[in-house]
């Protein structure tokens, strides 16, 4: 078990290190930052001065270790527009994104689990077909279209404009973007819960429970559902990626002042330091989340511990 934990942690660290290295190489070879920072008509000496100040005259290896050193000390560079540390800009935006993503995750998990369980219990009936149809619908629906339709119906039918920053205070102003963000995951959770539950219902221990005279409802809620939910932990970990990707688009559609909007804005204005930091932060979040999912398995599934 110690070996299992060690190999998972080592793999996560290596993955992160490779990502950091790739980001560094990409930034170094994308152009000359000195020429970009210096005034357009600057003489060669001034550009050279910038190069020295930025350490660009050093050998590649020295620049790389210097970069790692700065990252390790929490120095992630400064925005070329505001001059503020990119870490600070990110932290300012983080609460809004966490609020949106958290509500989206809760909505999609509760609705997805519920729909999936209802579908599994009514296998083959119209309810089941409707849920499966909804899951395909949710998968194929582009979140930017869904968001715009929500804004449009909100404005035309309820006279609420959801696309402005002012809307983020009201309940409806949070639920609408959260629903947009969580829709795709909701569909996949429903589909997954259904198939996982159907698989579990046919396991021998369910037959044993029936033989012991445990009532149907209790068998289902206390015996089948917890077992069926184990693989869902992996799915939630994996869907973190689509949640992050989705928040980039959703925040843009609803003018939500979060990290996703910051990323798009920084890309459009070529604020490399901020973009770089956001990429590293997203990679770190996903690697750590996957690590937690792997380790969580040890806690919730005794079968892995026994191996």
């Amino acid at each position, binding site marked *: 078990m110690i070996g299992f934990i060690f190999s998972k942690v080592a793999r996560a660290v*290596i993955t992160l290190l490779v990502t950091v290295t790739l980001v560094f190489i990409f930034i170094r070879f994308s152009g000359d930052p000195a020429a970009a920072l210096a005034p357009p008509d600057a003489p060669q000496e001034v550009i050279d001065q910038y190069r020295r100040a930025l350490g660009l005259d050093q050998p590649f290896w020295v620049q790389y270790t210097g970069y790692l050193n700065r990252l390790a000390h929490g120095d992630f560079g400064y925005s070329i527009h505001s001059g503020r540390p990119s870490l600070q800009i990110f932290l300012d935006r983080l609460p809004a994104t966490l609020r949106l993503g958290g509500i989206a995750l809760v909505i999609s998990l509760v609705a997805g689990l519920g729909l999936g369980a209802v579908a599994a219990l009514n296998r083959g009936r119209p309810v089941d077909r409707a849920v499966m149809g909804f899951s395909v619908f949710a998968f194929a*629906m582009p979140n930017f279209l869904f968001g715009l339709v929500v804004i449009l119906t909100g404005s035309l039918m309820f006279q609420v404009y959801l696309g402005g920053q002012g809307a983020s205070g009201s309940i409806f102003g949070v639920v609408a973007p959260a629903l947009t963000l969580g829709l795709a995951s909701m569909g*996949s959770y429903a*589909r997954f819960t259904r198939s996982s539950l159907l698989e579990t219902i046919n396991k021998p221990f369910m037959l044993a429970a029936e033989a012991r005279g445990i009532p149907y409802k209790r068998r289902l809620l206390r015996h089948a559902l917890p077992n069926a939910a184990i693989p869902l932990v992996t799915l939630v970990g994996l869907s973190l990626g689509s949640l992050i990707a989705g928040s980039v688009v959703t925040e843009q559609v609803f003018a939500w002042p979060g990290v996703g909007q910051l990323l798009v804005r920084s890309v459009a204005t070529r604020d490399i330091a901020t973009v770089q930091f956001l990429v590293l932060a*997203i990679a770190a979040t996903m690697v750590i989340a996957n690590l937690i999912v792997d380790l969580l398995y040890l806690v919730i599934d005794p079968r892995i511990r026994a191996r």
Partner: protein
Amino acid sequence: MDTNTQNRRSGMPMAVRLALIFIALFVLFALFGQWLSPHEFRATSLFDRLKPPVGFGGTWEYPLGTDARGRDLLVRLAVGAQITLIVAVVGTLIGAVLGSLLGILAAARRGFAETLVVGAVDVQASLPIIVVALFVLAMFDSSFTLFLLLIGLSGWEVYARLMRGAVLTAKEQGYVTAVRALGASPYRIYLRHILPNVISVGLVQFTVNLPLTVLLETALSFLGLGVQSPLTSLGQIMSEGRDRLLTSWWLTLFPGVIIFLLALSISLVGDWVRDKFDPTLRTEN
């Protein structure tokens, strides 16, 4: 997924048939739709700005209305559909070929090559492709070729993982040992014997991946970071119409509904193909 047992016996379910019809119509529209309109997709007309579609106060001069520069929406949708189709198919193909080759290479050579490929798959899986694309687009000038390559990167890691697994299994089969004992060269074994046995895995994944590529292209273009004006795509048309959502809804809703129906149709067909060809391959998504 396993609801359609009776349908599988009797042939294609109705939804899949409708989906195939829509895909055929979409391809026809992308290829020949430009001839439905006398206008050119970049031609502006200042006197015909923001004309509504027929049935909402518009005229047959512009059946689906015009945008803020008086360009005909019908012909723009046709050109946009064409670009979206090209990017989706070429992009998915690049990812499929690249990922499959790497996966086969990893399984065939084992050792260091395999470690490299598996490590690269891990790294790719740690970043959503839309974030990778945004990172690259922040540093390089957006060009159509670069954008196509970025879209091509999406999903390669899935092919690599699947193909590696399939080849590793195929290598252990008795027929490979038999062919090797007969003195066949490794190239012959891989090209003539193993590849035909694993190619269905790649083909099924292609149909599963295609709608994701459509959604990625349209999302990036919608953010204004994909296909750039004067060229257009369904996502790019939506991005231009976004600011006029409440007054000129046709600019966003028409391309949006086409994107949705296209992604829906392809994934319905993809699910059907997956269940038909390889029931063991069900990846939950």
